[in-house]
């Protein structure tokens, strides 16, 4: 008989090994999947994960995918470390995108000597914060479960987007397509590399990771957040308010998710459309845990997840596989990561109890 028994001392190296094992198992199962679909796994892997990053343009496209993932994941990780569970980054992305679009269309030609994209970008962050503030408010005032509230708000945000692209923000010249007018040029994010789509959002993402690292590893507030998550009674004893940590977590993660949504519409998309994010907000949860809630780990995990997105698009074009392959990869990865993490904390013991 097999049993799980708790490890007395989960080791740090196992904790770092777990994501690597999860990635390896994901690839093994993916290979089996390809065989079952009648594809040569070596060809498929090459097409999905190798050819996309053969040239600078490929890397720049990876950067485009990675930017929103990093922005969302570093914010979420700060909350997760404090045991504040924001599952609704996808909704905060969407509301951030709406807010940014609205401001871009209203003020996008710039003015006051400011670049045209600055106000829309800030509006996006603010929009995400507002959407994140709702679960924070309900958690601190009414003790409502923040997991459920933030998740439900994803759907509310999604419907809000459907409404505005069909109603108030629809382009009158769009022949009935549900989309906003294209933003004026000054409102578009600057491009970092000529002839690519790599935009300012990527630099902001790296900056966010750096600041998050500083926050977690060096700052007093970072210590307070961690303490509040790991030892709530000790935090109360020291006099740190749990409500402040909940608010802080939601405002930081909501703001960064809103920024990610703004950067998507102001960068590669260029207008508000009924779909602004292919699930970056949810994928960022996986990225955060795969990266062990650490900013450096998150950058590495985001690169992998970005490759899944990029590879999924290529698999659709070159291998005639459905784009859902990206979701399958994400699901496998999450499954194996949770499994591997179980073995970090528990040990499998052979032999019965009697």
């Amino acid at each position, binding site marked *: 008989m097999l049993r799980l028994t708790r490890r007395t001392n989960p080791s740090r190296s196992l904790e770092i090994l777990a994501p690597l094992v999860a990635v390896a198992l994901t690839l093994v199962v993916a290979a089996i999947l390809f065989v079952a679909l009648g594809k040569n796994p070596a060809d498929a892997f090459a097409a999905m994960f190798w050819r996309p990053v053969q040239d600078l343009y490929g890397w720049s496209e990876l950067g485009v995918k990675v930017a929103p993932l990093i922005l969302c994941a570093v914010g979420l990780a700060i909350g997760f470390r404090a045991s504040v569970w924001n599952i609704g980054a996808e909704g905060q992305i969407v509301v951030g995108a709406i807010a940014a679009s609205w401001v871009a269309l209203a003020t996008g030609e710039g003015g006051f000597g400011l670049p045209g994209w600055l106000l829309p970008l800030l509006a996006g962050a603010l929009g995400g914060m507002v959407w994140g503030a709702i679960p924070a408010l309900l958690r601190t005032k009414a003790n409502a479960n923040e997991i459920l509230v933030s998740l439900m708000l994803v759907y509310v945000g999604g419907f809000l987007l459907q409404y505005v692209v069909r109603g108030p923000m629809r382009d009158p010249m769009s022949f009935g397509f549900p989309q906003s007018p294209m933003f004026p040029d000054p409102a578009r994010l600057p491009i970092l590399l000529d002839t690519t789509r790599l935009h300012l959002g990527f630099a902001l993402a790296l900056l966010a990771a750096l600041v998050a690292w500083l926050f977690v590893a060096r*700052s007093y507030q970072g*210590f307070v957040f961690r303490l509040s998550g790991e030892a709530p009674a*000790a935090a109360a*004893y020291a006099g740190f308010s749990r409500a402040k940590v909940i608010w802080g977590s939601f405002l930081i993660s909501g703001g960064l998710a809103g920024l990610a949504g703004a950067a998507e519409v102001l960068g590669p998309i260029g207008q508000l459309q009924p779909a602004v994010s292919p699930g970056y907000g949810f994928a960022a949860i996986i990225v955060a845990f795969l990266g062990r809630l650490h900013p450096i780990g998150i950058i590495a995990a985001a690169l992998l997840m970005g490759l899944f997105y990029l590879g999924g698009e290529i698999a659709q074009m070159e291998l005639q596989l459905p784009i859902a392959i990206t979701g399958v990869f994400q699901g496998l990865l999450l499954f194996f990561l949770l499994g591997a993490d179980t073995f970090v904390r528990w040990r499998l013991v052979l032999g019965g109890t009697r």
Partner: protein
Amino acid sequence: MPPLLELVGITKRYPGIVANQDVSLAVQPGEIQALLGENGAGKSTLMKIVYGLARPDEGEIRWQGELVVENSPVLARKRGIGMVFQHFTLFETLTVAENIALGLEPGNAGSDLEGRIRELSRHYGLAVAPQAPVWSLSVGERQRVEIVRCLLQSPRLLIMDEPTSVLTPQEADGLFATLRRLAAEGCAVLYISHKLEEIQALCHAATVLRAGKVVARCDPTRETARSLAALMIGKAPPEIEHRPAESDGPVVLSVADLSLPSVDPHGTALKRVSFSLRAGEILGVAGVAGNGQRELLRALSGEDARAPAGAITLAGQPAGNLDPKRRRALGLAFVPEERLGRGAAPKLSLTLNALLTGKRQSLTRAGLIRQGAVERRATEIVRRFDVRTPGIQAEAGSLSGGNLQKFIVGRELYDGPKLLIAAHPTWGVDVGAATLIREEMLALRDRGGSVLLFSEELDELFLLSDRIAVMFHGMLSPPAPVRQLTPESVGLLMGGAGFEGGVGLAQAH
């Protein structure tokens, strides 16, 4: 006949420290054997090895002469080893019988569990009510439940790790009677405690550990408490002389007519608590656990800030509604009842735990932690209070119980507080360290600081306090100078005599 349990050459290493080194000992059936040693000597580690919670790096365990190849708590229980931990493992929301059933092996619970519980508790004089929900029990009753759970498996060896640190003297006497009866029936007992008088009264043999190694074996009935202490720490600790003082300094803390319903539905409400504490004075608070000490401590520390501002005055400021940080800024330091999880965060390093209640201005700059300053603080606490640890980067949870207690007390005394509120500051601390902590509290008083000392040990209260008050059912008797009191008169108050007509009538002598 081979011994019941024999340990041969047990060595256990943790990063940076050897917790047990080449430890051998043997326990005979029917023997009550003490395991002695200062904090961090490796007593708990050795017992966890016997119970299968930790794996030795070297050495053998023999059970009735046979080598133990595989060990785990489940296997140990099957062999007949029971362990009562220092920290309880019961579920509050379940009844006694349900808790006991959960701890038994499936299939072993049997049909008439309640009947068996009743019979056992009658046989050993351990009063437990199978139907009572655990939340309604006092610590002493909870411990009886833990013991009954062990006894139901008819153990041949019972391990008790500091069982009496949470018991009142009467409860401890009850426990000793049970243990003697068990021993008379052939059950062996391994007993850990820092209370040397207990060991002399109870144990047939003692093994003394120092820094993980066996340094002596003796017959405790032929030793004195002082000679046992000398075996443990190398020399007998200096005696503390009782030196009560009468202070006419300014009032540092005053509580006026504080009534507060309990946050916890099973707690005790505070009823019209009033007292004041002067600079240069130690005020002791006696009382059986569960009479509102917990609630009063929280109201004083600021963890419960529902009191009206004026009900608590701290350093001249109304403070009843201030949070703990603001109270600390007024000169308050606080040693809470629970060291792990409340007084310290188990997964964080000692360095970060030193930051926990430190003055923010001196330990941070521009929102960032000043690593050097915090490390100096942690190093200094560890040095001054002789905390045994591989280093200040060690997780607080890896320290032995007594060493963590020393660290917390040291941290709270570090900034030279105006007022120290301490709940059982010497819980689980060895004799040498207890002396150190008591001397530090006296030194704080002699420098003009104040101490509010909550303790269940009357000896400690009489040794340190200048005045003593008693808590009963959420009320506090008027403090009386210690020279007007005897342990008997305080004991009567602890039992509620004099409280019937309300606090006003309670006389402390």
